């Protein structure tokens, strides 16, 4: 589904990604953890080319993202993103937020898109908020709308960029619950997260990135129970102590 080969990314003189290889299979849930500034969000943002990779190759659903000729609009609809700050469209109703992609990108007629939108809002538990505006929702509700907006494109993979990091602690659970349900239904997901519990429970594979490189990866059972890399041990020690 996603194949990343020798990815490098620099911002000016600062090299944040120093050669990353990653392969995500269809239906797989991959969680990426690591300290702030380790480059984990940058990897995610290179996958749908919100950031232009400096070198290396990224293939998403058969499309070479690193080829400037690739039509990224189609790839982005197949590998859509859920943001830390939700980034809902504040001037549109919740339902309109969800239907915009299907109508403008997928060419769906608006009646069909509304039906789909209402189904998806029901799925994330927000059917009754369809005609509200984003500013009338809590953070957790906003993020669930953002997930519904992503699902509405019927994407092949969803990229989650720290989806619960901007939420009040009591609102984190409702968002993780929706993500767990997606994982059970077989959605391919790449999740940059600080939620170790979620990674442990849902991930097929956990990746630890530090200093712009993958330091360790593995199935969650061994990854958390028996970390090999000293940096990972140190990181897990700090995170779990909290």
């Amino acid at each position, binding site marked *: 589904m996603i194949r990343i080969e020798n990815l490098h990314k620099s911002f000016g003189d600062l090299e944040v990604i120093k050669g990353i290889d990653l392969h995500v299979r269809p239906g797989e849930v991959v969680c990426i953890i690591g300290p702030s500034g380790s480059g984990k969000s940058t990897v995610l943002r290179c996958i*749908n080319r*919100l950031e232009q990779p400096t070198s290396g190759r990224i293939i998403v659903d058969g499309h070479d993202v690193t080829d400037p000729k690739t039509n*990224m*609009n*189609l790839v*982005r*609809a197949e590998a*859509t*993103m859920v*943001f830390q*700050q939700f*980034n*809902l*469209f*504040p*001037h549109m109703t919740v339902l309109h937020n969800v239907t*915009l*992609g299907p109508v*403008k*990108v*997928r060419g769906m007629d608006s009646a069909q898109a509304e039906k789909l939108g209402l189904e998806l809002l029901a799925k994330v538990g927000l059917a009754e908020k369809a005609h509200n*505006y984003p*500013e*009338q929702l809590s953070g957790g509700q906003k993020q669930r709308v953002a997930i519904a*907006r*992503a699902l509405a*494109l019927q994407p092949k993979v969803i990229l989650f960029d720290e989806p619960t990091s901007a939420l009040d602690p009591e609102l984190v659970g409702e968002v993780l619950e929706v993500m767990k349900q997606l994982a059970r239904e077989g959605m391919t997901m790449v999740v940059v997260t600080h939620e170790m519990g979620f990674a442990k429970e849902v991930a097929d594979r956990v990746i630890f990135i530090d200093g712009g490189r993958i330091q360790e990866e593995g199935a969650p059972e061994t990854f958390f129970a028996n970390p090999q890399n000293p940096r990972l041990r140190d990181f897990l020690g700090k995170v779990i102590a909290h």
Partner: protein
Amino acid sequence: MAFQFEPSVVLETFPMLLRGLKYTVAITIGGLAVGFVLGAIAGLMKISRNGFFRNLAGIYIETIRGTPMLVQAMFLYYGVPMASGVRIPPLVAGIIVIAVNSGAYIAEIVRGAIQSINPGQMEAGRSIGLTRTQTMRYIIWPQAFRRMIPPLGNQFIISLKDTSLLMVIGVGELLRTGQEIVAVNFRAFEVYLAVGVVYLVMTLGIARALRALERHLRVVPGK
């Protein structure tokens, strides 16, 4: 002879000013309509990824902002026909001057409003597969437009008042009409007072209309 204020002259002056008012309103509306389109185009060019467009818009904005409108009007009306050999009717010249002049300021209003929108909005639009243009049209512009309204209101008021400068190129607008009335009745105090009142009524009207528009465009009523 001591000065004697004659309120009745003020009242008598209003109907006579109507002739000039027509021109003032026509030039303001025509000039600002074209000026908004010019400003929107120049503002978008100013933030374009294309350096040529950016420079072109920059030259336009700096040239117009950096020269007095009175000079622009006289250059267009008296200067340009000497080179082109074609005289421009005063009304048309007036509309062009207001359009080109307000366009430069509106360009900066448009640019500022668009740049004030959180970059996450563009990223979210692109992430659901919208093109840059679609994202601009459906996501960025509607939000930016709301933020443009207060500074646009300022510009509309300034442009309305600036139409009075067009008397120097012989446009029979409000102030010039007042001047013509004074030439006959010598009641400068009353006539220019009346002229001022008419401008004030119009500028207050614009401010009100834009406040109403702003309320109307508020996403969630009452907030």
